[in-house]
């Protein structure tokens, strides 16, 4: 699916910009040769802009004098810049750093077939892998490379760039870490410890060292790309909502911006340097309101939640476990004490995998409901005491279940086999290529990054080999299931683990599966109907996850500002073909479930037009048909668009009619960006759209391998996504009482984008933009080819 802006939008943008810059003193004709980007994680634009406008009585200047001086007085501020998709670090930075649609959609992702964990936020395994020459890039960069999506930094040759430590990082500069450690044990720090004033934390020292290095790099005229990443504001925003603490963090950032700007002015390319400050998302910090956590692992562990063994990427309440100290952890299983049929199998068969790192949103992957059913039935068949009539019914039910999937599984197995063959060929070719690579590198080659490129090839080969083994393992299970012949006369004797893959979830669940999810055998055991067939409704414990989750209530909710309903809504994509729009236009449909009465359908077409329909009682029957009842627009629906007083519609437009009609994405952005859920309508489309359409693959990639790459991305997509109500979060690792992000609340998505220098005019742009405008605009300003030219906001 392609999402294009309306063709007239660039013209409109140009006009708007021209209007905005009517008072500009400078003409943007100077050539921007160097980019310096200050990347700030989790900085809310409202907070920043408000603080910049405030005057500090003690100094007579702005509370953030440098940011005001650089950007308000000498640069351009994008007042309405939003995170596109979910307001999480890994997806948000991936879009800012590439200028492309997101193919990374969580801070952690799990491959449903292999259980492989893509942990995008954990630096430690990366450092360790780098030290062992096993890894050269952060996991996010590896994923983007495999998908053929270059980073903004890749537009600059290796020798022309300086990259700080960040999520989408290529390589590690060991000297930086070395100097940090030296500083940590310096006499100055030791004296501070003796004085009882304590030692500065390592991240503060790393920040100081990086600042020193970026200043040194700025003195080199051959460096054209420099960035400085800081996570301090994000950490502080999670920890506290105190205005004083947030102001303190902002002041530190302000000082940093001032020092970088001062270094730019003193550098050889000062007139051709564009200084940019950007943040990936906002933060839901409201003074006096603590963010409260609702434990989804507890819910999925509980009998009403299906009594799953739950996988997360970090230990729950990790501060109170020795294991919580393990920095290399990527997968933690929390067993359910109420498990219905897998009581002793938590390590092998965890059936609910959660990405909670989003805090205000969680993505949920559950084992395929029919795979559960097959597993339960196989366990029954193992029992020698199972009555014959029940055994016969179980065999019939099991065979019927496998047969229902036979066509799809056969197709998957065939394609996967084909892909594995292509992968095997690629592995062989890569091995040969690596043998021809030099083993030692000259200084010049190292400066060009040739050694890293070679290591990248070797790392990729290792990944391919691992994947080849893991996918083949899944394939063998799939084939075994397809070849399953059951004996209705005797107990089942084969190993269940040869049929049901461990640490795998199988195919995604459908809406129908999740409304009628098989969580375990019924307490009363298997029940036959009058025809001697298995009565599935009475034989299994079923869970309707949408209803269950929306019914969750918090008992301990001492803050009147918070709803007792911790879950705002649940979102998932509906299958293509099951959801034809009234007009009959081809569309993707995304379902937002508040409760049975309050639901929305967001429809999008291939030209990025979007329509929103209020519905209720959406269900999927056993034949896969999706039914719902349309309803009138009213207050209380997910995203609360109808009642939002900040919804800006064209004059004399009726709200309900406008909201239900098809509009271009840009029109939606104009209309909703000031609303409580800001660009939620667009972000749902970005977040839930089929990811395979956004994977172009590296140039020249074999078509089968391209299909494989797209499959790998599809396999990490969650079954459904849970969004927290305002000031609730899903953090389970420790506590984020200060604030959180991840959802579509404007406070969580409203981000910072400010530019100065390099001839960029002075002004404030009110026009709303989102993450996709960032990289394209910067590349265009530096005279490079933007990945999405229609997204360029200012050009030279």
């Amino acid at each position, binding site marked *: 699916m392609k999402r294009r802006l309306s063709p007239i939008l660039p013209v409109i943008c140009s006009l708007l910009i021209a209007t905005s810059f009517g008072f500009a003193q400078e003409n943007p004709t100077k050539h921007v040769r160097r980019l310096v980007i200050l990347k700030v994680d989790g900085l809310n634009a409202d907070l920043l802009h408000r603080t910049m406008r405030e005057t500090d009585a003690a100094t007579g200047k702005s509370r953030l004098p440098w940011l005001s001086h650089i950007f308000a007085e000498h640069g351009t501020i994008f007042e309405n810049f939003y995170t596109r998709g979910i307001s999480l670090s890994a997806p948000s930075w991936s879009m800012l750093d590439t200028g492309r649609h997101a193919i990374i959609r969580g801070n952690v992702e799990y491959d449903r077939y292999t259980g492989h964990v893509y942990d995008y936020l954990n630096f430690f395994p990366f450092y360790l892998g780098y030290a062992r020459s096993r890894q050269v890039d952060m996991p996010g960069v590896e994923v983007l490379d495999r998908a053929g999506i270059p980073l903004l930094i890749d537009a600059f040759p290796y020798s022309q760039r300086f990259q700080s430590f960040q999520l989408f990082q290529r390589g590690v500069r060991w000297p930086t870490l070395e100097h940090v450690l030296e500083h940590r044990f310096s006499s100055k720090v030791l004296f501070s410890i003796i004085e009882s004033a304590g030692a500065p934390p390592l991240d503060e020292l790393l920040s100081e060292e990086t600042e020193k290095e970026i200043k040194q790099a700025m003195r080199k005229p051959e460096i054209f790309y420099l960035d400085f990443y800081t996570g301090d504001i994000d950490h502080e925003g999670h920890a506290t909502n105190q205005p004083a603490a947030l102001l303190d963090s902002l002041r530190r950032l302000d000082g940093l911006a*001032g020092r970088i700007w001062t270094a730019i002015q003193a550098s050889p390319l000062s007139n051709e340097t564009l200084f940019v400050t950007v943040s990936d998302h906002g933060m839901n910090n409201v003074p006096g309101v603590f963010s409260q956590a609702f434990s989804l692992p507890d819910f999925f562990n509980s009998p009403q939640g299906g009594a799953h063994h739950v996988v997360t990427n970090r230990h729950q309440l990790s501060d109170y476990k020795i294991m919580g100290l393990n920095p290399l952890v990527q997968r933690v299983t929390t067993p359910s004490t109420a498990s219905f049929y897998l009581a002793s199998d938590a390590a092998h068969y965890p059936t609910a995998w959660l990405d909670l790192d989003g805090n205000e949103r969680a993505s949920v992957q559950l084992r395929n409901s029919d795979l559960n059913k097959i597993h339960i039935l196989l366990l029954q068949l193992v029992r020698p005491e199972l009555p014959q009539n029940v055994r016969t019914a179980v065999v019939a039910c099991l065979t019927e279940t496998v047969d229902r999937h036979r066509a799809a599984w056969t197709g998957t197995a065939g394609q996967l086999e084909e892909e594995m063959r292509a992968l095997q060929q690629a592995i062989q070719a890569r091995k040969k290529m690596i043998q021809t690579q030099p083993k030692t590198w000259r200084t010049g080659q190292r400066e060009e990054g040739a050694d890293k490129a070679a290591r990248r090839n070797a790392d990729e080969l290792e990944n391919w080999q691992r994947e080849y083994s893991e996918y083949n393992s899944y394939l063998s299970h799939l084939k075994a299931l397809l070849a399953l012949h059951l004996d209705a006369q005797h107990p089942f004797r084969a190993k269940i683990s040869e049929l049901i893959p461990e640490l795998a979830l199988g195919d995604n669940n459908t809406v129908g599966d999740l409304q009628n999810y098989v969580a375990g055998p019924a307490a009363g055991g298997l029940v036959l109907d009058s025809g001697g067939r298995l009565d599935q409704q009475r034989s299994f414990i079923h869970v309707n996850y949408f209803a269950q989750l929306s019914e969750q209530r918090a008992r301990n909710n001492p803050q009147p500002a918070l709803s007792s309903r911790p879950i705002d809504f649940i979102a998932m994509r509906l299958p293509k073909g099951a959801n034809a729009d009234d007009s009959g236009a081809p569309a993707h449909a995304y379902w937002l479930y508040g409760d049975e009465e309050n639901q929305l359908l967001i429809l999008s077409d291939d030209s990025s037009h979007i329509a929103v329909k209020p519905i209720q009682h959406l269900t999927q029957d056993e034949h896969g048909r999706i039914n719902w009842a349309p309803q009138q627009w009213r207050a209380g629906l997910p995203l609360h668009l109808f009642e939002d007083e900040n919804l800006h519609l064209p004059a004399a437009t009726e709200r309900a009619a406008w909201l239900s009609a098809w509009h271009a994405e840009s029109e939606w952005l104009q209309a909703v960006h000031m609303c409580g859920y800001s660009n939620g309508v667009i972000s749902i489309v970005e977040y839930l759209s089929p990811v395979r359409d956004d994977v172009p693959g590296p140039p020249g990639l074999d078509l089968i391998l391209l299909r494989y790459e797209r499959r790998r991305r599809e396999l990490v997509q969650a079954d459904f996504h849970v969004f927290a109500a305002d000031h609730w979060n899903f953090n389970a690792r420790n506590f984020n009482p200060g604030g959180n992000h991840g959802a579509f609340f404007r406070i969580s998505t409203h981000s910072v984008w400010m530019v100065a220098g390099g001839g960029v005019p002075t002004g404030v742009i009110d026009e709303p933009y989102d993450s996709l405008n960032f990289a394209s605009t910067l590349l265009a300003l530096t005279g490079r080819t933007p990945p999405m030219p229609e997204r360029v906001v200012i050009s030279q």
Partner: protein
Amino acid sequence: MLRVILTVVVAAISTVSVCLGADIPPQRLHAATMSENSQSLYYWKTTPAGPTAELLTLFCQSHPSGNDLDNVNNSDNGVPLVAVLRDTLGDDDPKNDRVTYVWLLTYERPTLPQRMLSAVPFFYWRVGQGSKSVDSHDTAPLLDLTAPVHPVVSGIGRDLLQWTTLDPMITPIRATSRAYRTNELDQERLHLEEAIGYLREAPISDDGPALTENQLNTILARLELRKKLMGGLVNERRAARLGEEADLEQERIRSRNWELLRQCAEKTDLLFEPIDVAGASGQYAVVWFPLKTSFESHGTSITPIWKLLNIRNPWTDDRLKEWSGRTYKREVDENGSLLPLGTPGARQLELVPLGVYSLNYPKQPLLLVDFRDKLHVREHEMTQRTINEITSGVIGISHFTNWYYYVAADLYDFVRARHGGAVDQAGRLDCYSQFRVALALDSRLDPQFRTEMQSRVESWAVNPLEAAPGREMQNAVLRYARLQTEIENDGSLIARIDKDRRAELAAFGETKKAHFAQAVLHDGSFGLYTHRAKKDPANLATLDCYRRVQYHLQVIDSLVSAGTQPEVAYDSSRIQTSILELSGLMSNVHSPEVRAHVQASLLRLRDLSQDTALQSGCSLAIAELNRKNNAVRAATASGVVASVLTAETAK
């Protein structure tokens, strides 16, 4: 391993001790409701201290009835808690103000019997309520901000005396001296934390009758640093920053603990309720048990939660099934959430309080009151103290020769802490210190509930030097009255202020080494020697000049330390004013260190600035400074200028 064995041995000893210490009989409790109010109860009152200083006293509005303060006869209907002396030099300009002393008015000087008992090893009881009178010794300040190094020197001296002289002696001497020193340090910490607790609630103002934010931060930092052996070595500028950071960190801890306790309650089907005690909002919370309800398994193990909460699982506690103690009826909504008092709900629940927690303890909420087990908390405290006394006092295990024991002990504590054990004894003492006085000051909680908490929190009192909070509050009023007599024109405090000013004059421009040497001399002579300037009618004017120089120099230093254009961060006209004033004041400053410092700062400021007016201002000031430097050098060479400073011995 030794520590584990000792734990077992000591547990037996302490159980016996605890039984002996159980001085409060169980009582039948009756239903009652609680009331809360988070409105700030603290306010400052300013009194002139002679013509050139002022005494700021922090009061807490208190208790119409029902607590220990009923007998306090105070026209303000407030309890004086902390007093601070601000030396203003007689003007309204805050640039030359200094905060010099901090008094904890509730500080209770231990009596002789208390001191004797505190030297008895394994004696863990508070005896009596404390002294009933306040004498002249009781107005000694808790903190002297003019000489933060003195406690460092004396602390090191006392530790050296312990390690080198007392520890090698026979066991009774070692054990006795260590017991006394430990109790003394704990008592000091208790009061430091008490003062910190009050001051954290204090209002601030830049122009009103309150401390400024910077002054308050400095005091808080100095109080915090005083708890640490070398804390007095931190310089003033850094201290203010540390104070600010400590305050922010405390808020982070509270919000984290608040959420941790709420989550623990949610996971275990208990009810969490934050309570305000004496206006201290967000610092304490109660966990309630709903009677006549049952616990349904959530599919997760809740065993670790009880460790974190430091209570036994109430759902398996038979006593709660037939609970005969006090219960509280509260309205809840349809989700079972507690409703504010007076709000009609969907139904009524009968609740039993399980515990009161302090949210100020780092890492986790700290159980202060266990309503089911009165001796639980006390037992824990006594066990840890007994282990310490056996190892360091009786056996004589030393940090130097038996370091491996302490490494193992630290490792053991680390593991316990990772599993939710509150192993930081000092941190626990801090929380107890705040809670005991907050309860004594409170007048808003339900009286019966407060009384129940007070009776149980008494079990924390394991230091013989400690006085009852109620007595401390009563004596605070007397101490405040005495302090007011001392700040009258002929009062002893006025004379003391003068001495301090002369010491400040003498110390101006001293090198760090010289400053430290003077502190050592002062402490080495047991305070008999203090380096001071001569008495002179011009002293006040000179001091005013020096303080202003320091103020402007601090402004300029903070600008140049950023390494960026100063006029961006600070209004250039204000910088210009500072430069001009500084330049004018420097004619009266002869210290070569200060002159060199000013010159270097101005040079740096000129280099950083791109404002031509500012640059020329700096250049002019530097030229003026150089001109005077030359003149001073010439004058010094001809012997015209003699040192205005001499040392005198103080009595």
